[in-house]
């Protein structure tokens, strides 16, 4: 097989999102925002990710302790960490679909580097789901201020434990989960003991949204959530797992030994039975759409690399791209990308109407946003936004979402997650099938194969997500 020419693929916004483009005449402002996000993330990925993706991967294979801090600083400078923070607290006011469009672009370039940004938003959605404005607002402001200085202020979400992975993300399974991280009420706050594992961004984040439990005999109703800053006494980030792929994004082990957290750092209501778990559901309802987009991005990256390989190599004296068998593999790969994309768009829109994101777009925040920035930056205004009254309003908004609507969000997000990520793995495999053995030594293609597998596992294995679709849509609507 020989290499023969350069190659480039150029698809515009309408080729990529035909349905959104078709809505342009009806909702010009919204569509133009999505198009801007798409273009912006494309430029970011081309300029700051593709050139370093293989190098960072190779470097971490040699030195597992290396952290891509330079990339994080660039991402901060390019304001990639405040995309969905409401404008009223200084962010860019983006929505979930905007975020998903960006995830697809970033992960098509490099899933590991893209996941650094993705995991930050998982932490942020846990923070938002708590809706404790006195904690949320200062952290969001710090993120925004950090971006102005080019210093990343990142978050992680810590849910998985050594003995319980998907269990802690499932309402039925959590009752029997082998939990080890507990919060004990002490004077002025809580004492935390236990361990969290596979925490994406653990080594990079300044704040960790930690989900844990208070009563080992009543796990379903005793969940709790805390925001814990790196460096807190009794809290250690002991190691990063050595993984097969997505090496740029560390999967860390967090250890808590008599770690004292003051009462006011609790982000989930501690006095409402079972609330934390429903909040975890809101987080996953939003984040799994994002993982669907990440999977779609990986599937697209695999497609683009395979297409480039086929265009630049020959087999049996003819360019591979000119041979029908290869064209049909490429067509299937593109079809997989389209399926993944259609699913995450549907899921993100469902969440924006019925999920966590609907609260961030609540009339209260929209109204506050109408004030000029000068007023929004005044102390009294910030005090109102982070007040307990504001917290009450926001929580009420979330609690008002009917169970049926929540279940719809969860079913669609689970389906978007397992569809996009299964197709990512399928495309990664097809890319090697098309390239043959050369794909096993092609830095882009072999890396995609390693990177793709992780997304079928995290945010609840794809098997658990299939069960969620059953529970939330088929079972509840079936009479037998």
């Amino acid at each position, binding site marked *: 097989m020989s290499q023969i020419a350069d190659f480039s693929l150029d698809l515009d916004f309408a080729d990529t999102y035909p349905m959104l483009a078709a809505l342009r005449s009806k909702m010009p402002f919204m569509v133009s925002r999505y198009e801007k996000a798409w273009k912006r993330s494309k430029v970011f990925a081309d300029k700051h990710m593709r050139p370093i993706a293989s190098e960072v991967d190779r470097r971490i294979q040699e030195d597992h302790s290396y952290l891509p801090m330079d990339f994080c600083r660039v991402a901060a400078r390019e304001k990639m960490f405040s995309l969905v923070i409401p404008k009223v607290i200084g962010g860019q006011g983006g929505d979930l679909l905007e975020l998903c469009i960006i995830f697809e672009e970033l992960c098509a370039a490099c899933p590991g580097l893209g996941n650094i940004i993705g995991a930050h938003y998982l932490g942020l959605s846990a923070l938002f789901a708590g809706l404790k404005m006195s904690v949320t607002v200062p952290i969001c402001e710090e993120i925004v201020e950090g971006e102005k200085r080019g210093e990343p202020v990142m978050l992680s979400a810590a849910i998985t434990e050594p003995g319980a992975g998907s269990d802690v993300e499932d309402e039925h*399974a959590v009752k029997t989960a082998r939990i080890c991280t507990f919060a004990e009420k002490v004077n002025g706050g809580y004492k935390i003991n236990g361990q969290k594992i596979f925490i994406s961004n653990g080594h990079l984040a300044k704040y960790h949204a930690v989900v844990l439990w208070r009563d080992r005999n009543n796990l379903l109703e005793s969940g709790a959530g805390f925001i814990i800053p790196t460096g807190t006494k009794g809290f250690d980030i002991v190691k990063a797992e050595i993984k*097969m792929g997505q090496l740029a994004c560390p999967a860390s082990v967090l250890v808590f030994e008599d770690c004292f957290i003051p009462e006011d750092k609790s982000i989930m209501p501690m006095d409402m039975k079972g609330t934390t778990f429903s909040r975890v559901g809101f987080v996953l309802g939003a984040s799994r759409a994002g993982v669907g987009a990440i999977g779609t991005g990986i599937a697209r990256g695999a497609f683009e690399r395979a297409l480039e390989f086929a265009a630049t190599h020959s087999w049996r004296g003819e360019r591979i791209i000119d041979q029908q*068998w290869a064209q049909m593999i490429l067509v299937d790969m593109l079809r997989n990308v389209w399926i993944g994309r259609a699913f995450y768009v549907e899921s993100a829109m469902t969440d924006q109407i019925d999920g966590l994101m609907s609260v961030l777009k609540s009339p209260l925040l929209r109204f506050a946003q109408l004030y000029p920035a000068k007023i929004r930056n005044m102390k009294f205004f910030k005090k109102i936004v982070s007040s307990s009254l504001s917290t009450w309003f926001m929580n009420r908004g979330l609690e008002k979402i009917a169970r049926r609507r929540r279940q719809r969000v969860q079913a669609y997000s689970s389906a978007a997650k397992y569809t996009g990520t299964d197709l990512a793995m399928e495309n990664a495999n097809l890319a*090697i*099938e098309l390239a043959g*053995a050369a794909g*096993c030594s092609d830095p882009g293609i072999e890396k995609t194969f390693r990177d793709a597998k992780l997304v079928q*596992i995290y945010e609840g294995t794809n098997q658990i997500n299939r*069960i969620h679709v059953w529970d939330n849509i088929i079972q509840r609507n079936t009479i037998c």
Partner: protein
Amino acid sequence: MISMCDEVLSQVVETARRFASRELSANVHERDCYPHAPFAENIYRIAEEVGLAGISLPESAGGVDLPPEALAPILECASCADPGLTQCLLSHNMAAFAAGMASSSWGTLPSPLEGKPWAYPLYMDAYDKGDVPTARSDGNHVVVSGAVPMVACAPVAAVAVLPAKLDNKYILMPVNLSQDGVKIGEPLYTLGMHSCPTADITLSNYKAPKDLIITGNPDAIQELHFRFYPAAAAISLGILHASLEFAVSYGKERYQGGKMIVNHSQLRTMYGRMEADLRAIRQAVWRSAEQENNLLDRMAAKCAAGDAAVRGTTDGVQLIGGYGYTREYPQEQRMRDARQSAELLGSPQRLRLAMMDMTLD
């Protein structure tokens, strides 16, 4: 050709099993770090001492004198423990067997049993060799120039058997890697099979003695690969076997939703597919190894083994969950190794096309 019940073969398979459990099972992860860690030359030497490097060599040359097809059950055992080192054994046995096809003496070449594996481009497809070096006659020699990609064992070998095109015919020739005109590239970072060092080799006016040139019918490469398809398939099967065993033992220890993982029917279907693939394809591989003149059966079995290993080891990681994705557990390596093993002696996708070319044209 061979019988899987052959007594000598049974003894060698038992030896391979013991070798795998004593020597290969430990420190797999360290060996997987090549080129950041050294090649496990000491373990290769032990393989040679117990006879696994000379399976297809004549007794007069210190070998076991079994046909190449006999490697299938042997390499399946070894591959369960370390597919990369098993790949070294395949490379060595193929290269040494090919050299023996031309001459029973090794001429000026080092002996094939001197503690170093011989190199062979194991990922070459016999039905589309791509750009191979070109050779021209020059007295008692042929002069060869060109590049050969992905030569297994190249960075640690003394001898490689490489393809070339001479007068429009494909030939193989043993190449003394310390001779002038040979350049071995840097070790390649490949997806899997890290414990088998791999590199490109470039020849510039390399002079090969004519009496060591290997020709065949219809060509040397196709003839050689025909004999070794079952062995290549067996490497994939070994990886699948190990992945299934590990997933089952983990699934009996780990609980999910209050139940052992193996007791979830959704997951049992995944286990079941691995088990069914393993059993059915093993039969196909062994049967194709036992029969003569069945090229298509051998190619089909190799493709099926590769595809099943890719699918099964991907599920093998999934059944372990997050731990399966870390290097602390062996499943992630199996997934990488399996994907690469499917490409041995030609990609399944292209071999299937070649099969239909043979059937239809």
